[in-house]
């Protein structure tokens, strides 16, 4: 283990988390919007993303392995699990953010003759954006932590060091995985909190 190797594995870690959160944004925001438009859907979807969150992460990684196409050993399975975890804060915050738009503001938009699409993109989403960003931040920070477990199923990333360190009772190796992961989470939180504040203005 040397600095170059730590850097490479940290890069791997960042890539896994980035792909997962981007996928969760692409899936989660439309799901959250759909929930605000359809009461029945909101019950099912919000409950489902809640339930996923209650599955212990190591178990979720393990449960995905035997599933064809998305399962197996490696980074792909890890990404699928991380996407599932990241959905909850993103779907829920999209839902809450849009629901939180002042009814008088929404009514004004309708009364002025905005189409449903214009109302969504020009009024509801911009006003919900700080809340949605906050969900993304939670997904990223939690994802950085959970992704260390991905190494258990051969997903790569900083967990590789941690698992190897635990097996070999090598504290230095554990720290080589844990410290970069903690730093990543810390700085991601800092940067995304800043973005969130800027959105609130």
């Amino acid at each position: 283990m040397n600095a170059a190797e730590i850097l490479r594995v940290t890069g791997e870690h960042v890539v896994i988390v980035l792909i997962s959160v981007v996928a969760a944004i692409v899936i989660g925001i439309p799901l959250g919007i759909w929930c605000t438009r359809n009461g029945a859907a909101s019950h099912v979807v919000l409950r489902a993303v809640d339930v996923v969150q209650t599955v212990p992460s190591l178990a979720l990684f393990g449960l995905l392995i035997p599933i064809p196409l998305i399962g197996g050993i490696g980074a792909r399975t890890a990404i699928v699990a991380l996407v599932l975890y990241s959905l909850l804060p993103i779907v829920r915050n999209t839902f809450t953010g849009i629901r939180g738009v002042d009814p008088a503001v929404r009514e004004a938009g309708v009364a002025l003759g905005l189409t449903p699409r214009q109302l969504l993109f020009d009024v509801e989403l911009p006003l919900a954006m700080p809340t949605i960003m906050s969900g993304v931040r939670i997904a990223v920070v939690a994802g950085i932590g959970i992704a260390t477990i991905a190494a258990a199923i051969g997903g790569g990333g900083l967990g590789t060091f941690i698992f190897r360190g635990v097996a070999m009772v090598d504290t230095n190796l554990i720290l080589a995985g844990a410290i970069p992961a903690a730093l990543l989470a810390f700085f991601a939180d800092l940067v995304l909190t800043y973005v969130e504040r800027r959105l609130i203005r």
Partner: protein
Amino acid sequence: MELRDVGVGGILRNVSLRIAAGESVALIGRSGAGKTTMLRLMNGIVAATSGSVLIDDVPLAKSDLIALRRRIGMIIQGSGLFPHRTVYENIATVPRLLGWDDAKTRDAARALLSKMALPFDEFKDRRPRSLSGGEQQRVGIARAMIANPPLMLCDEPFGALDPIVRRELQDTFIALRSDATIVFVTHDLAEALRVAERIVLVDRGAIAVDCAARDFVASTHPIARQFVESATLAA
């Protein structure tokens, strides 16, 4: 504009009201009487559960509501300004939807705001949250009026204004929109008498009195009497 035997859930029942083009009508009544619901029926924000709403003799159910609403100015209680948009962007909403060019929109906004005692250059880039309640309300009025809609629906438009500005704006409003059809919700009889030619008293979801403004003070309906008496006391 016509409401033909309209009911809305438990809020309104058997409401029939015909408003001629160019007429100005005040809907008055106590809180919760159904005035605002009646107003929202007229641009389809609330749907009738029975009866029908017609504008220019076309039922709302058969019209293009989006296009129709761009020709109806609605002033919402508490302004409903877009908090993420500047004063100018708020006012430019309908002109942009209608495809006006920037110069025309800007000139109209400038003229309208100055009539509302809000200097354009001082206010155009400000956001609603930095305005007082009365200023927000005036921007809301300007946003509803800028495209000269032939029908104006107003829900307590002057509620947050101090009495002096309120009176000035009532006069400005009447002068600006003398040609439009105006439906005006208020619980202030003095305001109703000032703005409207005709007064409709709404009570518990039905029309209790419908008469020319000048005849209202002589109405014998008990709630009409209450309005007249409390207005006399306040004067």
